[in-house]
């Protein structure tokens, strides 16, 4: 569907994108994830045509669109600020692209109302100014405006970033549902890993103009390909040398020469170790209460380690309490410094 082949983008002397290769499949929800300045928005703007790459090509449905003008690409965009025209009503905002295509008035009206109904905007709301709508309604207008011209692809540039936390979660669900209903190929840019994990079919993790990994949410989270990815996604413990040595001493298959990581939820407190698992003694130094779960900071003597336990009311540990942390060496993700990962399990 969309193929980015060896895309290189430069701003003056600065290379913003180094040989980016991505293949997005038809109907897929594909996310570009990464910290700010990593090149994810630049890649999106290269696809939409606002940026022309120095080399490489953008191919959509086997057609090379690298040098096609923005307006001829047939790609819808939902902007970070939504970019709704403040001097037009909701109706006129949605109808803008159709008017440019010189459609008949009746046809425009039919299409606007049809899409408005699909994104759940009432006739009353169509008459309003965009400033009179709530954040969520504005987002729906932005989506309707992007979809009404029937684009092959829709691109969204951090569309949830300027909303408050609760609304963000609510709209995230709506967004996913809408994408499923419309079945449209979607490229989504975000720096929020939770958003990426919950929404996407596949994720590309960006760092400093390179793609570190492309994979499903599970692959990216549980089998992070690089040290950067495992650090960027989710919370994680880096096991220091003394702990690693203790593990090696028990005969576990851990390579002391590598950087070893283990996710918080893969560790358990005061449970009987299964065959192959190792128990380490420690002391609870701090406890963070999150409601859904509790995060414990446990001092293992040589390092402090974070563990998450479901708040099921059974296993609650006090600060200062002596405990045993159980670790399964197969859950450890190990990276040779400067090399790609060898992921266990």
């Amino acid at each position, binding site marked *: 569907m969309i193929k980015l082949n060896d895309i290189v983008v430069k701003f003056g002397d600065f290379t913003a994108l180094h040989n980016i290769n991505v293949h997005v499949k038809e109907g897929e929800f594909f996310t570009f994830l990464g910290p700010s300045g990593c090149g994810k928005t630049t890649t999106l703007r290269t696809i*939409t045509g*606002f940026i022309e790459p120095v080399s490489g090509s953008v191919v959509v449905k086997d057609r090379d669109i690298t040098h096609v003008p*923005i*307006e*001829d690409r047939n*790609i*819808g*965009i939902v*902007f*970070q*600020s939504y*970019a709704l*025209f*403040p*001097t*037009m*009503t909701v109706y006129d905002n949605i109808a*803008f*692209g159709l008017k*440019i*295509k010189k459609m008949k008035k009746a046809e425009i009206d039919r299409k606007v109302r049809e899409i408005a109904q699909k994104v759940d905007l009432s006739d009353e709301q169509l*008459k*309003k*100014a*965009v*400033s*009179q709508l709530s954040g969520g309604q504005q987002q729906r207008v932005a989506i309707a*405006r992007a979809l009404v*011209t029937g684009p092959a692809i829709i691109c969204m540039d951090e569309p949830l970033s300027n909303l408050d936390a609760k609304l963000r979660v609510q709209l995230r669900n709506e967004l996913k549902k809408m994408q499923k209903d419309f079945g449209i190929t979607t490229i989504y840019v975000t720096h929020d890993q939770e958003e990426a994990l919950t929404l996407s079919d596949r994720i590309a993790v960006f760092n400093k103009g390179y793609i570190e990994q492309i994979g499903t949410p599970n692959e990216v989270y549980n089998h992070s390909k690089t040290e950067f990815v495992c650090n960027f996604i989710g919370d994680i413990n880096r096991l220091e040398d003394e702990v690693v040595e203790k593990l090696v001493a028990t005969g576990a298959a851990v390579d002391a020469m590598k950087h070893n990581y283990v996710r918080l939820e893969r560790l358990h407190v005061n449970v009987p170790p299964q065959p192959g698992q190792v128990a380490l003694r420690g002391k609870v130094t701090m406890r963070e209460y999150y409601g859904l779960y509790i995060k414990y900071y446990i001092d293992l003597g040589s390092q402090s380690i974070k563990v998450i336990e479901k708040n099921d009311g059974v296993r609650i540990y006090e600060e200062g309490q002596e405990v045993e942390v159980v670790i399964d060496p197969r859950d450890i993700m190990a990276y040779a410094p400067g090399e790609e990962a060898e992921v266990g399990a």
Partner: protein
Amino acid sequence: MTQRLDRKFHADWLLRLVGIAFFAYLFFGFMLLPCLNTLTSIFNVKNSSGARDPLAVIRFFLAGSMGKYVWNSLRLAILLMITVNVVGISIVLLTEYFDIKGAKILRLGYMTTMIYSGVALVTGYMFLYASDGILTTALKNAFPSFNPNWFSGFNAVLFTMTFACTSNHMLFLRNAIRGIDYNTVEAARNMGANPFKVLWKVVFPTLIPTLFSLTVMTFITGLCAMSAPTLLGYDSINPEIVRLAGSSTADESFPQARAALLSIILAMFTIVLLTVLSAYERKGHYLSVSKTKAKLQKQKINNPVANVLAHIYAYVLFIIYMTPVVMIIVFSFQTYQAIRLKKLDLGSWTLINFFGQQDYEYLTSRGKYKTRVGSISGVFSNEATLGGIKLSFLLSALAAALACVIVVVACNYMFNKKHKKSGVVLEYALLFPWLLPTILICYSYRTYFNSNSVWYVGNQNLYYAQNVRLLIIMAYTVTKLPFSLRMIKASFYAIDEELEDAARNLGSSPLRTFLRVKLPIILPSVLAVFALNFNALFTEYDMSATFASTYGTSYAMVIQAMCAEEGLYGYNVNASGRRCASTVFIMLVSGLILYLVYGVGARDLGERLDARKRRHDRWDRFLSLFAKKQTSEVKG
């Protein structure tokens, strides 16, 4: 596709070339060259034997008699800096900061200078305080020893300008004080500071940047004062330049070069002051760090004596501001007899000062009665006055619109990321007139274009006959460019870059994006700037007086003339009445414009839609009432 791109590329280039040519023409032709000509003319003086003597004017200046004008202007500027700040800060604090009873009414009074200024205001003050003014006459009748000429010269200019120049305080200082985060005041009170301590230690420091700008602007206003010194008789720089410009070598030594020198001195002062101001502004302001600002609440003055004194002070200021306005309005509806006797005649009101004509019967020196037909006439029936209004209306509207169009085109160019460097050059070119006093620009135009040898205006003498109107339009436009640029540029920042991207993505061409997306966003600001430009130019005096031409007699000049010609040989019998009526007319026009700009124009689409809905609802309720009545009648 390549062909299409090629065509687009060529059209782009052509457009760019036309643009560069236009702005170069404007900058070099109507800003730089005329002013450079003025500068060089100082050194092109010929002595009596016809030889060039570059330093003659400088020697003349150092010898003495010209220094008076510079000193007088400086004295006025320095004192105004103090008095205007005292009054300006007072009126803002009294209406916005302290809890004074009747603050809303007081504010209206203090804001009256926003609807009439310049000649209209000065003649208004003269109507009250001049030797034959209403108040002076009343005082003289009460106290025969009272000096009727008390209101003239320096004191009169200082008094008038002190109250006339507080409009900027009312606009900018008021905004600054309203922007204060009330939580900071509460925090200071909570820590034990009394209201005056809070004012001094917490509020004032945040106002300093605004006050600094206002002070510099007031200083420049004082230095470049024109209408008040001219009408009230004070020898400052500007009136002298105008006098010299109209003089000839037959009357005095090198008047043109002296005028040029004075205007250059004025320019140097202005440039230094504005450089200081922008250096200060660049240092940065105190920015409020709070994300949730609390609205300022009025502070009660707890000390009863201070409270009473503050109220008295507030109302005395109110009376000073309001008296001329009230008197002018009242007397504009009075007959010429009442005005001449300076006595309000509550029994006879008339509209003759506004509309219509009347004959005037008078006794000649030979003891016969004669009738002068149509000698009493209203603003809209008097040929000269109506001519002035029409001319000023046309020239101001054209210039105001031209300035807006030029600035919008320039801003659209400047805000394109591709034109960063050339955009800065363009911006400075348009801000250039800001550095120069208006009089320098106008004087330069008058002397430079008063010849047939300026090739780029087709070797036409622009200071000849009707051409002078063109010259006035250009002067109006050029002097309004900096203000228009500052205001309209600010509105361009409101255009989110993503809006442009969104429109392009939806297939919109750059022109369509400009017309349909960007222009509607900036339009309220552009219209506001147009209205404010028009408002300032419509009653403008300084520039048209510098051009002093029969074909360029602006409305303000007509008003000024009305001060002198009243009843002379039985002509223009009601000149004073018409003057009052003119001022009332100006107040109405300005008031309407300010209402449209700040009242209606400030609403966004949502507010407009809400207002429309409310109107519809009211109409529906009205109709339903009517329908109910009808049905009940049918039933009955």
